[in-house]
């Protein structure tokens, strides 16, 4: 009898032990992001979390063009397929006001993230509305527009001599848009299949808008007053028009057929030996320093966005914050994951893997700035970034900008001023429709 009782107790104990183990393994979190290298780095990072806690974390990805549609389709259905999403900064308005994101203000204040993360990343990846002190995401992947260039072309003595003779100053990494334009013109030699510059022109999402706004901001222009939604005289200011006009001038020196290009093509402009300089988000630079993917890796250099005529220097912000989806059934588990993610050692590991940490301490460290040929330029850029409208109707606003500037830049129709006047009128009508001028 004693044997039977002992066996039963042992059996129950074993079953409970197995049950506990199974339950620990059953805990799962799904993070949704776009399909690119940083998502692979994140998967590598979260494997450590699984090893520490037994909670399986999967980074689910989808190609960039489908990212927004797929995420919002799931949000709108109040689906729980994703526990967290690494959403674009422009989604903050829609994500917060439409109830898709969990309010992380308490979490933010409790962990004093305002002191931990770079100021620009908090402003653009986490807070909505601007200046409200309400936070909806934790800055995860910092990113911004930067430039790669062919060091060997720039350092060739014959080229240097010819450039100096033509433009009257030394050929070097451009510090102003005017110099960037001169250098693009100088190296633009279609008969040799060499071109001056590669810029973003795709208008199906935000590629072209990011390139154009970098120029507009640096020329002293703005897209509008994000607090009051005022656009008249701001969106279509003379400074903004000058910035857009500069972008149009740069388009003249792109390789032929450069009318639907984004990050893939702009990297190909360097890997294919096509262009002297190429614009891209920093997150797309890793293949350019890899000899397996870039035959010119040894002679590829990087620089931050140049200044406008008055010395103002800005770059369009990319990157994303991570938000907890309000329809998730594992919100508490997701919060525990975020607590792990913001730890200093996790942020350090994130940067080592290739992710662009937003932690000020890691960004400032020599280890980070010397880790790659472009990390220093990235560090400089992250303190001069500006973003697009993050208002809930940003998709409509983005489409209107695309519709107005694309025919000017790529099609050569009208003037910069006309394109921006039309944009200001369209945006005013849209913001009026959504009662933003209360």
């Amino acid at each position: 009898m004693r044997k039977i009782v002992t066996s039963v107790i042992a059996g129950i104990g074993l079953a409970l032990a197995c049950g506990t183990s199974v339950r620990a393994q059953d805990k799962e979190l799904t993070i949704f992001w776009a399909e690119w290298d940083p998502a692979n780095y994140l998967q590598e990072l979260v494997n450590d979390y699984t090893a520490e806690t037994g909670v399986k974390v999967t980074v689910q990805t989808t190609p960039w063009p489908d990212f927004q549609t797929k995420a919002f389709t799931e949000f709108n259905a109040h689906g729980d397929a994703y526990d967290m999403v690494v959403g674009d900064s422009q989604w903050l308005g829609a994500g917060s006001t439409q109830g898709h994101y969990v309010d992380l203000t308490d979490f933010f204040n409790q962990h004093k993230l305002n002191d931990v993360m770079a100021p620009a990343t908090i402003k653009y990846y986490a807070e909505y509305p601007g200046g409200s002190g309400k936070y909806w995401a934790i800055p995860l992947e910092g990113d911004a527009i930067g430039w790669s260039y062919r060091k060997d072309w720039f350092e060739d003595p014959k080229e240097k001599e010819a450039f100096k003779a033509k433009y009257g100053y030394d050929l070097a990494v451009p510090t102003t848009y005017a110099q960037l334009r001169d250098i693009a013109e100088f190296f633009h030699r279609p008969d040799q299949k060499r071109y001056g510059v590669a810029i973003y022109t795709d208008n199906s999402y935000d590629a072209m808008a990011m390139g154009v706004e970098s120029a507009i901001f640096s020329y002293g222009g703005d897209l509008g007053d994000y607090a009051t939604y005022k656009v008249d005289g701001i969106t279509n200011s003379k400074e903004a028009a000058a910035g857009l006009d500069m972008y149009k001038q740069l388009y003249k020196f792109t390789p032929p057929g450069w009318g639907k290009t984004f990050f893939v093509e702009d990297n190909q402009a360097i890997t294919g030996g096509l262009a002297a300089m190429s614009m891209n988000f920093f997150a797309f630079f890793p293949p350019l320093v890899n000899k397996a993917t870039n035959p010119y890796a040894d002679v590829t250099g990087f620089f931050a966005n140049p200044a406008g005529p008055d010395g103002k220097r800005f770059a369009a912000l990319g990157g994303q914050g991570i938000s907890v989806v309000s329809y998730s059934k594992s919100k508490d588990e997701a919060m525990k994951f975020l607590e792990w993610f913001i730890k200093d050692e996790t942020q350090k590991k994130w940067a080592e893997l290739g992710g662009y940490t937003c932690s000020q301490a890691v960004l400032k460290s020599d280890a980070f700035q010397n880790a790659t040929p472009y990390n220093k330029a990235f560090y400089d850029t992250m303190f001069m970034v500006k973003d697009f409208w993050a208002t809930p109707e940003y998709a409509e606003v983005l489409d209107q900008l695309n519709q107005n500037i694309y025919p000017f830049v790529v099609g050569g129709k009208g003037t910069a001023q006309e394109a921006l006047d039309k944009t200001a009128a369209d945006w005013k009508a849209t913001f009026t429709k959504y009662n933003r001028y209360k």
Partner: protein
Amino acid sequence: MASVALTNLDPASRAAARGWSDLTIRNLFIIPTLVFLIVFNIFPLIYSLGYSFTNFAANRSEPWQFVGLQNYRELLSDDHIWSNFVITAKYVIVSVAGQMVVGFGLALLLNRSFPMKGLITTLLLLPMMMSAAVVGLFWQLLYSPSWGPINYVFGLGDFAWLSNPDSALYAVAITDIWMWSPFVMLLSLAGLSAVPQHLYEAAAIDRAGWWYTFTRITLPLVSPILLIALIFRTMEAFKTFDIAYTMTTQPTAELIAIRLYKQAFQQWDTGKSCALAYIVLIMVLAITNLYVKYLNKVKER
């Protein structure tokens, strides 16, 4: 023994012997079809019609409001939308006309005996079996001014087909012609093979020329099936999305289907996009009805 006896009966009697009436068998086929039709076609159609009179946005949690005809009014007075319709009309005319000419021409060439006719016909049919998105990406490469073979073959240098606002739409139309001419060819071949041979023999005896035979015998007898091809291709061209979306982002090639997609799934303006879908539907129905009326007249001749 019973099964042997059953197999000797006709299908209806066999079913009756099993206890299935004609009505049961008919219902077995019709009821699932009806359910499918109601659930996946009629219900969404009515539901979206309802939405088209509201300000419903699928990405907002706030309740929607009934706005009457406001969506329709705004759309029909929007210059951008009219511009999309004009672009679509241009595209339909160029693309469908091209497909009819190329498709029917190919059918005339194939409607005779020559070596490897079967293989050549099969090869010609391949384009329409491909995915439209893949075809779009493939032609994007063909048009590339840097490494695409089209400019090389025709000596066009750096001409940028898809970046040029004046040529982008026609470049997409040429791709659509390449992809769908085989469909017209297939239907035309069926029509050509149905023309009674004795008519051609009689014409030959009367020493009728090729043009006379073509315009008085071939074309009138094939025209009903050509009109059917025309109806199908017009409807499809009007709805073209994938090829154009993958090939170019030129606003001058923004077809109405692309505008509809942007309105519905990028801007989440659900109510208005439903209204736009209905405007497109009404236009397609109107055009199709015109064709069908003409088709009936042709048949009566």
